[in-house]
């Protein structure tokens, strides 16, 4: 037998050692490192005089103002007002939106009757109808709450309807085959199946609720974070303005985390 000289090259595949488990202790520092780094750079360039501190006060100065506002109670007063409006509008608007959305998803005639209306009103920025609501309801809390609720309502009506319409047919068949009553069907099939899509609607609605509440407080309120930001512009108190901006950002983050937690609790399943 003739042995041939091997031609070509030998390719060696590299092994990979098992990766350490990913936990909060490894990802956590990374999570907060970037905001802290940003603040540090900001502080540094402010101290070096590279940025105009009249417009971008250093974080330390903002922190001092923040502390003053907390101590004299003004911060709680304004946060309380904004929180109340957002919570009421978000919860009431979302519940009504989910109710109509689920019915639109399940009943063709409800869908036919409401969909053109929803589709036509949905794209109007709800802040644009605030003057109209002011005319109808007067300058009070009610007009603010209604505007916030309305903006949440449309997000949830659309997402709940989409969620229900996308339920795989077999689950609807199972519900019918096991003779679920209409109410039981909504409770055990339609709502749980649509919940993942409803949650993405809730996230959008929450963002909209903050947008609307701050806008409304700019023009039509005597208290609230939006008022605080607007008022600080009038006083030319940039530090106070940053306190307001940070507060909105903090509240938004807090609410998103609450929604995340709620979703983990209510949607422990996957497809």
């Amino acid at each position: 037998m003739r042995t041939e000289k091997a031609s070509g090259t030998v390719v060696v595949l590299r092994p990979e050692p098992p990766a350490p488990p990913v936990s909060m202790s490894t990802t956590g520092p990374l999570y907060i490192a970037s905001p802290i780094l940003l603040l540090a750079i900001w502080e540094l360039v402010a101290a070096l005089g590279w940025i105009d501190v009249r417009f971008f006060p250093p974080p330390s100065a903002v922190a001092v103002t923040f502390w003053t506002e907390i101590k004299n109670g003004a911060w709680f007063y304004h946060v309380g007002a904004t929180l109340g409006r957002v919570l009421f509008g978000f919860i009431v608007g979302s519940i009504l939106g989910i109710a109509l959305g689920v019915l639109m998803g399940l009943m063709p005639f409800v869908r036919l009757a409401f969909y053109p209306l929803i589709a036509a009103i949905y794209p109007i920025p709800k802040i644009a109808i605030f003057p109209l609501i002011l005319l109808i309801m007067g300058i009070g809390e009610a007009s603010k709450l209604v505007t916030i609720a309305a903006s949440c309502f449309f997000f949830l009506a659309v997402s709940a309807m989409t969620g229900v319409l996308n339920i795989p047919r077999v689950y609807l068949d199972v519900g019918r085959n096991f003779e679920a009553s209409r109410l039981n069907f909504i409770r055990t099939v339609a709502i749980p199946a649509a919940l993942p899509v409803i949650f993405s609607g809730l996230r959008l609605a929450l963002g909209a609720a903050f947008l609307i509440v701050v806008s409304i407080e700019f023009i039509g309120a005597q208290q609230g974070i939006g008022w605080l930001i607007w008022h600080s512009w009038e006083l030319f108190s940039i530090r106070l303005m940053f306190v307001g901006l940070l507060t909105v950002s903090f509240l938004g983050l807090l609410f998103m985390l609450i929604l995340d937690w709620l979703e983990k609790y209510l949607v422990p399943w996957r497809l």
Partner: protein
Amino acid sequence: MATKVKIEGLRKTFLLKGEHVVAIDGLDLSVSDGEFVSIVGPSGCGKSTLLRILAGLERHTSGHVSIHRADTDHPMLNMIFQEQSAFPWMNVADNVAYGLRMRGTDERTVAEQVRYWLDATGLTRFATAYPYQLSGGMKQRVSIARAFANDPEILLMDEPFAALDALTKTVMQDELLGLWEKTRKTVLYVTHGLEEALTLSDRIVVMSARPGNVKAILDVPFARPRDTLALKAEPRYGELYAQIWQLLREEVLKPEVKDAH
């Protein structure tokens, strides 16, 4: 034996792109109480549609369908679907309890029944698991347990094991056979698997290609309880297999009949 299901001259048409397509044309079939009947046929012959009509999920176009209802508080019929049909948002125990709860059964009875059927289907360990945590075979066990726990008079099964691998399928057929022999419910079982049909049924209905109709009905004479392996060694098994295969072959090779109405 008493007639449980009687179907005469069943016709079903679908509207497809503005045209009426005849799915089932003049089908006659009667099923006795406690009988296990399999339905085989080429794809699109309307065998799933037949089950959906019986389940009340669709209405037939014309013809006569009657189901004899015993004077009991059992539900009339439940269906086991081909695709994953255990609710992903309920854990295994809640899935199995579903039918009972929808009928307003008291929670003590529900708990008893759930315990029994979880045990009978080997799911006890997974009672609090969600379907996404289970394999395909386990998910289908949940659907089977859900239907059996509801204790209907008739079980409709639409290719329940079609999506499973060959090994799991054989195990599940064995288990189904065991469960059925305990309960002796009337079963209508749609399948593509001839071995499955021969193993499980009392009779096999061979359907023609669309428009669907009964082409032949064959008796499966094997004694019960059956042993799935020993069965395959019987000469009659091979004969019946070949006979059904020949009938189906004719249908699959038949040119499709275009029908305007």
